Structure formats: structure tokens, C-alpha cells
């Protein structure tokens, strides 16, 4: 492992300045559960590691009438143990409480999960179906990017030189909203998604028809995929097996998986279809309360 400097700024400005100075030879450190592994494996060589956990804005969760905002450095356990998050955003809990085991969850941040930009990331699809926005600070000022546009390839994001993810925010869900995420792994824990599906939907007041839906797919493409056609297909449809199966088939079409050690193309397509059906049903259950 190449020796590096450890920097622990207390403001966003300071952090941005250090990152800007070192370019791609510096990286923000949230929980470090990806960064340390990659650094030790010599995936990259760093001159500086910028610990973001002393910057207050990156370490807070706020839940209110405008929705939910999660600081980029907040560890998973502080998200899923937050009772307001659990009550209003169970899909975010679905994603954060399966990342690694207890030890990992007490360090790993949802922001780290997003910035690591793994196609298999369990935290990202839940953010996408909640229409979350990433808040970015950089040398040129602040900007916002929809989470579904944040990852640009495996380990690649929209972040430019000197930029830092500050938080992810999402609107307060409307009435009759439900969302859920699951992944398929051959074991019961401590595994990387072979395929993952998040679904959010809004039912009409009768609870019998879909008003809108968003479906996002993990591990079946170079980035988490927003399966727009699959989600849109539910709008205005009655809640029944037929419309659910049709949406699941469209989700399957939206997947563009590869065959690797974790699974095959065929298996992953099939899993997407199966999991989409299951998650639509689970989201309906949650929407109906």
C-alpha cells in the first residue's frame, strides 16, 4: 500500500480545496468499507485521504415535511435505526440494512455506497425509486443531480475534480405511496446482489389502481438502471396479476446483464422478472398500509 496523508477537514470548503488540489490522487473517506479495500488491493494510489466524518452537514439526517435528507457520511445503522426513516421510508431501510453485516453497517455510508458506483450497490435503487437528488459541492459551486444520473459506469460517477457529495434528499412521499427493495443472493447475508429490484408506486385512493410507479434494477447493467417503461406501464392500470406481470416482463427487457461468477445473463433476467413482481406486491402492501 502506497503511503498517503490523512486529512480531516471540518467544513465542506476545506474538503473541496484538498480534493481539488490533489485531483484523482485524493479521495473522500466515508466509512471506508470500499475505499480501504480498494486502496489495499492497489486499485489506485492515493496521496491523500479526506475523511468527511467531521463535517457536520455530511453527518446529519433530517426528516420533515419537505422529505428526507441524508448526509453523505451517515452510516447505514443511523439510517435504519432512525424511527422516522423507518416509518416513512421503509424502502431506504430495505437497502441499508442488508449492506454487509453489523460491522460494515456501523461504518458504511449510503453516500459511500452511491459514490462507489457499483452496479450491485444495494443502497442506490431505493434512492432512485424515491426520486432522490444528489447534492454536490465543488470548486465551482453547488449542483444537484438526480440519483439515477449519478453513476456513469462501474466505479464511475458524474463527480468532477474537487467535487464532493454532500447529501441525498428525496421528497416526502404522497398518500398511498409504497416502496420496497430486495436483492437475490444465493446465501442469506454477506453477499453481493446477483440482481436487485426496487419499486415505488402510488395507488389511487381506492387502492385498486396504480397512479404511477418507478422501478430500478441493480446488478444487471454497468450502472443501476431506472426501468422507465416498466414503471410507466403501471400508470392507470388496475392492481392485478396481469398488469404486474406485464411490468415485470418490461423490467426484464430493461436489464442488460452479463454472465460472471455471480450469475448468468439468463438467470439474471429471470431474477429481475421474479423480483419485480415480488417487489410490486410488497410495495402495494405497504401503500395500502
Amino acid at each position: 500500500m502506497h503511503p498517503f496523508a490523512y486529512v480531516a477537514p471540518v467544513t465542506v470548503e476545506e474538503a473541496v480545496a484538498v480534493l481539488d488540489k490533489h485531483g484523482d490522487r485524493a479521495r473522500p473517506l466515508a466509512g471506508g468499507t470500499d475505499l480501504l479495500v480498494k486502496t489495499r488491493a492497489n486499485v489506485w494510489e492515493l496521496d491523500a485521504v479526506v475523511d468527511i466524518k467531521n463535517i457536520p452537514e455530511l453527518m446529519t439526517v433530517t426528516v420533515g415535511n419537505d422529505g428526507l435528507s441524508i448526509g453523505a457520511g451517515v452510516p447505514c445503522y443511523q439510517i435504519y435505526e432512525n424511527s422516522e426513516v423507518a416509518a416513512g421510508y421503509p424502502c431506504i431501510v430495505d437497502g441499508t440494512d442488508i449492506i454487509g453485516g453489523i460491522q460494515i453497517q456501523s461504518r458504511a455510508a449510503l453516500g459511500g455506497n452511491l459514490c462507489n458506483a457499483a452496479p450491485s450497490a444495494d443502497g442506490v435503487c431505493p434512492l432512485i425509486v424515491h426520486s432522490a437528488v444528489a447534492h454536490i459541492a465543488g470548486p465551482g459551486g453547488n449542483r444537484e443531480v438526480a440519483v439515477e444520473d449519478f453513476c456513469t459506469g462501474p466505479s464511475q460517477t458524474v463527480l468532477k475534480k474537487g467535487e464532493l457529495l454532500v447529501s441525498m434528499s428525496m421528497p416526502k412521499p404522497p398518500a398511498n405511496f409504497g416502496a420496497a427493495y430486495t436483492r437475490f443472493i444465493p446465501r442469506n447475508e454477506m453477499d453481493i446482489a446477483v440482481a436487485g429490484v426496487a419499486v415505488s408506486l402510488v395507488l389511487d385512493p381506492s387502492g385498486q389502481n396504480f397512479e404511477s410507479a418507478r422501478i430500478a434494477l441493480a446488478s444487471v447493467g454497468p450502472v443501476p438502471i431506472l426501468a422507465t417503461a416498466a414503471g410507466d406501464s403501471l400508470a392507470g392500470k388496475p392492481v392485478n396479476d396481469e398488469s404486474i406481470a406485464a411490468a415485470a416482463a418490461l423490467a426484464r427487457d430493461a436489464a442488460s446483464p452479463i454472465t460472471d461468477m455471480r450469475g448468468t445473463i439468463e438467470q439474471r433476467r429471470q431474477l429481475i422478472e421474479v423480483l419485480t413482481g415480488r417487489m410490486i406486491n410488497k410495495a402495494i402492501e405497504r401503500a395500502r398500509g
Partner: protein
Amino acid sequence: MVATYDAKTDYKVVGTNPIRHDGLDKVTGRAIYGGDVTVPGLIWGDVIRSPHAHARIKSIDTSAAEAMDGVYAVLTHADFPVVDEREIEAGEDIVNLKRDQSNIMADDKVHYKGHVVAAVAAVDRNTAQEAASKIRVEYEVLANVSDVDAAMAENAPIILESLVGDHLGEDVPNTNIARIFRHEFGNLEQAFAKSDLVIERTFSLSMVHQGYIEPHNATVIWAEDGNITVWSSTQGSFGVRAQTAGMIGVPETRVKVNYVEIGGGFGGKTKVYLAPIAALLSRKSGGRPVKLVMDRTSVFEATGPAPGGKIRMKVGVTREGKVTAADTDLIFESGGYPGSAVGAAAMCVFACYNWPASRITGYDVLVNKPKSAAYRAPGSPQASFAIESVVDEICEEMGFDKIQFRLDNAAHEGTRRGDGVQFPRVGLEECLRAARDSDHWNSPLGDAPAGKARGRGIATAYWMNGGGKSTCDLMLQDDGTVMMNEGSADIGGTRVSIAMQAAEVLGIPAEDIRPSIPDTDSIGFTGVTGGSRTTYATGLAAYTAAHLLVDELKDRLANLWETESGKIDFADGVFSSDGQSIGIQELAGKLDPTGGPVTSTASVNPSSAGAAYAAHICDLEVDLATGKTDVIRYTAVQDVGKAVHPQYAEGQIQGGVVQGIGWALNEEYFITDDGAMANRSFLDYRMPTSLDMPMIDTIMIEVPNPLHPYGVRGVGEVPICPPLSAVVQAIHGATGKRYYELPVKPGRILEATNGD
């Protein structure tokens, strides 16, 4: 649950569950493992490994590494002495010194990705790593073979050019098949002809890893006087001594191996990988202590997987439910150098049945993957998977009861194993009857939730267990405590299971024995902890030493009591003669006038051991839409001979079952086209976690081993064997499909069931 057959049962210590002597240190983190070792002046070593599965080394440029500040030494194969092809025993592996030397550091070729090419020693770990990264190696990349079919194909790239294969006694150059051998008896053709059903199937298996949590490590000092001191986590210090000395060309007695605690081995820590490198680095660094520790990737890529391969299996039966004949080709991957577990597989494959005729042909085949090493009952799990799968198919085809069929054909006392060995008293029939009568076998499977299906599988297996050399010293202290030295590395609680056998003889509590495992200079030779031999053989040494101690105490007491030792009785810890009596621990304080301290030592070398049989029942549930399998109930029935420490015997069985289930369901070396292992981390090498396992129930059968005074049989290995087939037959039950390829991972189940 324990069921006993005609064994003595009124033991005081044997059969109880005292806390292990090393337990507190291990749960508090005080215990010193190989990775914890530090000595004054310690420097660090690191290695570079081949990025190619098969390549010729054209040149190695070490100048940039040598020029770096803080670097003490750089090592390549040229620094090793030339050694001959001498073979030495290393537990369940045979080590060929010349080839193992090339395996731990490549000579002119690399045989697998991860093969060590050069090493450095430097002032600290980072400097060593950075120096290693500056070594430049020029390779000529060669075509690689990653399975036995490719390796045996005509015009296959030859991996070990100096190899002359032994093909049924014939010398064959230019081959990847190191050995073909055969065991045959009876008239196979006639026997098959008398069959009403003959089934022939081919099975494929992938390499799997032992998956011990602690990576390999070694710390070595090669001092100016030529004495070499080693600390290394191992299953056998004397094995490390012999292999290290052999590979670096010094007499064994110049090498002293200190015992350190070991974080799992399962057979994979009998071979030596690092100590000879650390030794040569130490000498080149002016006698500084050098430490080397592997990372997980290296453990996967370059240390002991169990062989995968192909097994062809042909079995005949009569309509009446009698086996007629069996014929198998066991084609095992040895890895980058010769020497797989195929020999042991051949001994085990047909050992559960009483065959009128059988033929077993074994192939040891090189592939461009890491050199295989022993893994818990080496060869038997693969063999059991194949034979038990075919037996299951036969039973279903013919409508035979799966347990009755096995009972009707079971091996028992007097049956000959496929390679000719005749069984003494063994406990397979007792295991099968216990399985048949078990609550598990007699409980319905129950209904699966919607979208899921359940199945039940049963399978049996055999492991011969090992004997061999062991030493134990006992030293009686004034307060009645007995200090015990024994030479066996303690992987599974053997300090206590050995101490208990001495305690039983001496009539004192196991807690009053204080066991130590000394360095190789300080205890008589003791073989590796492997082959399920330790509680049996080192226990026998402790039993013998305890009797010698009692004999000596009788002599001393005869002196005190002015009688003859032959007139003194000893029972339950008390000496008595003519109405006088004294407890052994009281006597301990009165020995000074009789000649001072009393000690004893015993070395034993039992040539064989009592075989172990097991029958396992597995219930599981398959999610038919995703192919995910969940084991929901599991019962392991095993003949343990005598459970010296029932909780630890049970723990051995449960651990073996979990590894066997992992082998069946998800574990595999996933090899890409360039010959690399893609899943070289615990995240992607999918061993079961605690959350994947139900409680593993055990039924321990005690059919005493006639070769041991307490009837002890080895227990640690056979439990890994039956799960492969038991699990797969249960998946067959749930899905209606047959599976001939391991692992039966979710994708394979979906492939098999799609279209239904």
C-alpha cells in the same frame, strides 16, 4: 444423542465435557497465533506472484528492488539449493521436495496464477510490498488448461515438462496425467451381466477451498550458527520442520519449529508455503527475523484447494436389491504439480457396500490451477457424491427403500474395500439403523410455502482414519497436578481430548492436567494433526504414558510401604495394598524420599486406525422461481467409536456438515478463460454463513474401535463427505431433476427446471 454398542460406559472422565484448557486464551484474544508473532529486530517479507496461469519465465530483473532503501534481500528460485525428487510424508499429502520447492517459488515456469516468482525482505511491510512491485518479470505466456478434459486432450499444453507419467505401470513422457492406477477384483463383466439394472453416469466437480479463516504465515530466523527457528501456524510442527529443512537443504535437526495457535487448517495447513522463503530471506538479511503473511487472495490462488475433476460411475443391481458390480474412473485435478487425493478417493469410493466385483481406476491430472492439498477426508466427499447419487437413482428406479437397500448391501466386519483391505469391526449398519429409526427420517417433510418445494436426501460415506507416530510426556507435580507435553497441533480441542485419556487412567480430573505443545526440539516426534488421528493416536500415547506413570508410582510406593509393586493395586486414582491406601494426588507430595520427581514418556505408532462411517439426512426447500436453496433440517449419524468429549465430537460433525453443504450448494473455483480464479475473496467464494444453516442435529453411534482402549475412532473428517450427495438428492426431491455437476447453485437449478 449418543447410542453405545457393547462398550464400557463407566468412565469418570472420558465421555464428559470439560472446558478446553486453551479456551479462555482463545476467546479473550490472548492466545498467540502465527500472525501475532513478533521478535526483536523483525523485518518483513513480501512476494510477487504470477499474473498468468501458465508461462515461461524469460527473465527476472530485481535490480530496482535491490536498490531501494530499507531492502535487505531479494530472492528467486536461483537462491534455493538443488534438491532431489525425495518424497516425504506430510499428513494426508505426500510432499515431493523438488516439486514443492518449485511450487512455493517457481523455477523456469509458472504453473498457475498466483505462483510465487520472487520475494523480498525489507525494514517494514510497506517497503517490502513496494520493493516487490519493482521486480520486473518477463514472461512468455503459454496456453493454459483449466480442467481435466483439456489437460488430457491430445496436443494439450504440457505443464510439467520433466514429468514422466506412470500409466498403469508404464512410463509415459509428455503428459499431464501423472498417474493412472487401478484396483480390481471379481469378474466385472460377468457381474454386470447378472444385473437387472445398470446405471452409468458422469459427474463433474469444481475445485473448492478449505476456507480456514487464518491466512498462512511464517516467521523465521536463520542464525549465524546455522540454527533455524520457525514460528508458523500449522497442523504439524514436525512437518514444517521436515519440509523446510528439505527445501532449503539443511538437516532437519537444525530447524526448530515453535508451536503457535492455528486458526483453522482442514488439511490445508500441512503443506509448507512460506517458511523456506522466510528462512532464505533471513539468511540473506544477515540473520534478521523475517515474517511473511499471505492475504486472502493468495490463500485462494496459491494454497491447497481440494481437487475438482470428473467421475464416471457405473453400478449394477439385481431386482432383489443386491449390488452386483461397480466400475469407476476417478479423474482428479492435482493442480499445477502432481499429487491429488485420488488415491484416498479410490479407497473410499466403494467402501460403504459389499461388492461381488469392482474396478476403480484413478487418474491424477495436472491443470493450471493451484497445487491441490488435503481437505478433510481428502477425496472421499467427491467419491461419495458420485456413488451415492447413482445409488439414489437406482433406488428410485427400482423402487427400493433407500435405507433398506443400503443395509442389505452394507460393508461390515470382514468385507473387503475396493483396494483389498479387509474391515475389522465397523459401524455402518448401526449408523443406517439409527438413521432409519431417527425422528428425522420418520417425520414428514411438511408442506412448502407457495412457490417453494421441499425434498429429502440421504447419503452415506466412509473415511479410513489414520494412525501414526505420536509422543506424550507426563510430569507429576508435588501438588498432584500433572504437566503434559504432547506434540499434536490443537485444531479442534485435542489438548483436552488427549488430557482426558491420561486423566481417565490416573483417576484425576482433566482440569488437573495442564497440557502444553512444545517446540520440535522438546517433544518426541509427533505426526501432523490430520487423518482424524490425533485423539486416537496422541490419545493412545497419553494413555500409555499415564500407565507408565502409574507403574513408576507403584515402584516408588512399594519402597514407602515396604512391599512389592506387584502387590499394589491401582483403581480410580487410589493405590492400595494390604488395607493401606493413598490417592495419587496425595502421594505426589510424598515422593522426595523415593527418588524425586516422577515423569513418564510414551511414543506410539499404531499402523492403522478404526474406520468411520456416517449416514446423513437432509431436508431442504427450493424457491422454484429463483433457484435458491435453504437447508431446513439436517441430521448427521456417525459412528464415533467413543466420544471422548461429546460436545467437541459433535462440533466436529457439525463443522464438517457445514463445509459439505457449502461444497454442494455454492462453493467453487470460478475460473475465467485466462485461467484466473474470478471469485478470490470471501465475498464471492460463497461459503455458508451461520445464517444459512439450520441446527445440525447429530446422532453419535459408539461402536468401539478394537484398536483403542477406549474404543476411539477419528471423528473429524467423515462428516464432510455425505452432505454433497444428501443435499443434491434433496434438491432432486424438491425439483424432480437430477444434478451431475457441483455446485448445484441457483443458476443450475433454474437451468434444469426452466421449461417445466
